[in-house]
């Protein structure tokens, strides 16, 4: 427990890790938003969820998007992933311009370039863990890379659970299956939406540690939306959103740093300062 009474997740100090995958200016961009606006409704009922957000996600970096409720963090992620359309501006994933893609283009994008991890796990109850993990590949009609599959499975420690149905797995195990499902296709970007929101702290730490390792060791790009400072501290970089705009950014955060920024966000006077 820390001073605030919060459970501190058990994790190796990330500063001790080598920075082999550290972002340099020449690294290609995995995803990017250029002056993205998202407006719901019109006239009186108009709600501006995003106001001109421009943000770049470098390849091989674990980015957390934080912000208070209603700040637009989920909307930004949905727009980045092509799940939602933008009102103005452009979104790119890798070389692909997401803005303006039709359904089949978006389907292809999700198949080849994007992976998802959800708060609710979202596994198919009729499929075994292994089948769930391989689902994106089989939908795309791609052969899994056996060596990579084994690596992923070993990393998430699901070797003994592959034949189980989701109902027979704990929440943490289910989320690890979901992580493995996102990773096994080696997408350009994995979008994780509150991945630890439904997990106890131990399971959450496992999942976050696994996500970070996949970035460090395999160069995976991950964009995670969260409101948990501890979860955010696993990321290489934290972007803060408030009122639909990027208001702050942190590199190599610790939970206390994140918590501190969040407190300031909740107090507009300090933000203005």
């Amino acid at each position, binding site marked *: 427990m820390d001073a605030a009474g919060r459970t501190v997740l058990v994790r190796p100090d990330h500063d001790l890790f080598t920075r082999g995958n550290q972002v340099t200016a020449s690294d290609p961009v995995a995803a990017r938003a250029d002056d993205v606006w998202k407006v719901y409704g019109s006239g009186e009922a108009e709600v501006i969820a995003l106001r001109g957000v421009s943000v770049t996600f470098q390849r091989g970096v674990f980015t957390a998007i934080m912000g208070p409720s209603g700040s637009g963090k*989920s909307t930004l992620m*949905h727009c980045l992933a092509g*799940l*939602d359309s933008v009102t103005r501006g452009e979104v790119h994933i890798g070389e692909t311009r997401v803005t303006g893609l039709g*359904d*089949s283009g978006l*389907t*292809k994008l*999700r*198949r*080849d370039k994007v*992976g*998802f991890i*959800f708060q*609710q796990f*979202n*596994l*198919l*109850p*009729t*499929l075994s863990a292994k089948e769930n993990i391989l*689902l*994106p590949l*089989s*939908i*795309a*009609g791609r052969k899994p890379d056996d060596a990579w599959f084994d690596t992923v499975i070993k990393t998430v420690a699901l070797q003994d659970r592959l034949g189980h149905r989701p109902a027979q797995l704990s929440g943490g195990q289910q989320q690890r299956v979901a992580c493995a*499902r996102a990773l096994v296709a080696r997408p350009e970007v994995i979008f994780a939406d509150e991945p630890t929101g439904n997990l106890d702290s131990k399971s959450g730490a496992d999942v976050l540690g696994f996500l970070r390792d996949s970035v460090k060791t395999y160069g995976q790009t991950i964009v995670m939306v969260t409101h948990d400072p501890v979860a955010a501290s696993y990321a290489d970089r934290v972007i803060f959103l408030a009122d639909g705009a990027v208001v702050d950014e942190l590199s190599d955060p610790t939970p206390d740093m994140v918590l501190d920024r969040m407190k300031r966000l909740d107090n507009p006077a300090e933000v203005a300062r």
Partner: protein
Amino acid sequence: MFRSMLRGLLTHKLRLALSALAVILGTMFMSGAFVAGDTFAQGFTALFSTVNRDIDVEVTAKDTSPGGQNAQLGTPTALLDQQDVDTVQKVDGVAKTTPGVYSAGARLIGSDGKVVGGNGPPQQGIAWQDQDPLIQLRQGRPPQAANEIAINQGLSTDSGFGLGQTANVITLEPPTPYTIVGIFGFPGDRPSLAGETTVAFTLAQAQRVLLNAPGKFTSIDVTAASGVSDDTLRDRIAAALPDDVVRTGAQVAEEQQSATSSFVNILKTGLVVFALIGMFTGAFLIFNTFSMLVAQRTRELALYRSFGASRGQVNRSVLLESVLLGLAASIVGLALGILVGYILNKALQAFIDASLPVSGVVVRAYAVLTTLAVGTAFTVVAALIPALRASRVPPIAAMRDAVTPDKPLTRLTVAGAVILAAGGLLLGLGVAHVGDLPTWLTLGIGAALTFLGVALLAPIISRPLTTAAGKAFAWSVPGRLGARNTGRNPRRTAVTAAALMIGVALATGAGVFAQSAKAGISNAFERDVNAQLAVTTSFSQGPGANAGFPPELEQTMAALPGVSAAVALRTDTVNLNGSDRFVLAGDAQAASTIFNLKPVAGNVRELDPGEVLLDQDTADALRLGVGDRVTMRTARAAPVTLDVVGIFKPNQAISSSLISSADAGGFRSPFAQQGFVQVANDSQVPQVRAELDRLFANNPEVTVNDQSQLIDQANSFVDILLGIVNTLLALTIIVAVLGVVNTLLLSVFERTRELGLIRAVGMSRAQVGRMITVESVLISVFGALLGIVIGVGLGVAIVKALGDEFLSLTVPWGYLLITLALAIVAGAIAAVLPAIRAARLNVLQAIAYE
């Protein structure tokens, strides 16, 4: 509380609309049957009251001929003479007598060489009456010479013959030319009363060619003097003519009406049975819908319970929903049914070639009440179990996630097995004709129990079966997922499939029966008819109907080069030693050769006048043996005594006693109805056939067929019946397919999140559509397979139970394959709407909702 719950009901509009549609279809069909039947009957009522409007009293002779009113062909034999007319005329209170001649045996050959009419309404011949108020001369003049006729407007139009032209008319005489001198119509500017054709001859000619009885009449219509009531006059005339039938015009109309209404009732009952089968199927759909609604609303219902709603209140509110749904759907169904009734009535009239004097539709109170009651009752009964389940939702369910654990299927399976066993036992009893109940009832209840038992067993069968069938789709991801989904909720899959099973089983059963009948017919022909060629006459019935050919042509046929045996058969109902029997007259020697008659006693040989060959059944029934004598009374001649010279075993072709042509003079029809020709050498068949065609060229009612044509004719009759049954079963199948649509829509709704996920991980719209289609096809194939298995069982049971020699048990494999293929198509069609819904799903909303 009810109001707020009803709001809950209305939020599930689409699913309710689908189950309502099932009720609507059923009630529509049912009320359509009622309305069509009643309107049709009303048409006949109007017709007969018109026909008898101007008759106060009608006198006819009592028909004492063998078979009497039931004899379906020949010439009227119950006749009156001038002396009767005079007697009636002298009765006090009689203003006028009109003796009439009527027979349904005047067929005019149209300009296309074919006989006009004959598909339903009679082809009647009458004697022209100058002051008949019913008949209105429109053109020309009444017939005055033997070779002159007047015809009704409708007949003139249909035949293409007008005033002054000459047309051939078949009566008791072969086709004979007559000059059309008059054309008449009926009150209300009608060209016919109801689509019938009428040829009016001079009185003398009518008596000769329609009755073969100069000076005789078929009826005397009496007009009462003013101040004398019909009933009084009837009683007075009856006293003067105690041996005749004397009725008022109203009585006649009523009797004619009741004869048709029994036909209309059979028709109505048949249609209603199919409507009920459709509703029975719909009950499965309603059951499923309500179960699903209750399951989805567990939280809501628990909330009511936690607010203090009692079990009874929850139970009642769900039932009230079903009452409202059932009633609303029944009202819509009734409204549509009235429209269907209107169309169906027109179709019926077109089918029998009639145009009855009725406009609009007749909607009786019982039709409205029965339809609403049955529609509502089916809905409520189907909703009973879901309502009970709703009342069992504990209040605590409001606080926690709705978990629907997979309840074990043991109880269901045991119950299903017991019910199925009972059904099977009843079917067995029915087949063996054991027990006091009539066979059809035993089989019917057995079939219903079998359906129910299998429906209860279906959940436990569904998983392995759909898994096995799912292997067929395992090569694609959507296929595999679809197959898995089918096995996911075995009860729901089973109920949905069971609904389809009913229609498929009945269609399959009918198919087995039809195929067995066709096989039986073919076998009978091949075994018992050794003739390459047959002469048949068109089917006609009614007093006076007498299509046929002169029996003397038997010798002519036999004498044709290449012919080894020929027989011309005359048929009639006669009276043998006090018992009405159907007998045949013709060359017994030839008949024996052609039909393989096997003697049981005496000889089967050529008959001299005064001799008879009895079939064994008749001989046994009348306790007659070879050497005995039997008295035969015919319709038109004095009784004769016949010597029994032989007894033969009846077969499929000949199952009636045979007499010599010389003794058939008293038969109603002077004609032979059927001829069979055996050709010695097959190569000569075309040549003989050409000769026969030439022989019957002048008579369009006589056709020459070879054996395969004959079999085809008999089979086409079976096919038509099967077609009608299957058309009527289409209603049931449509309802079942609606059920599949309903179940899938619900699955799509329940699995919104899952569908969102698989879209998010890269599944395309088309793939999602395919996944739903696989699910739908698997449910349909499951239902069809169950139906086919049960249907074959039912068909076999019915064929065995009837045990008729005309049925040779045959399973129509091709028909079964087509049924299965249709089920796949139906499944694919049922998937369209749910698949579109699933594919249109907004991915973001599907996965983002909390």
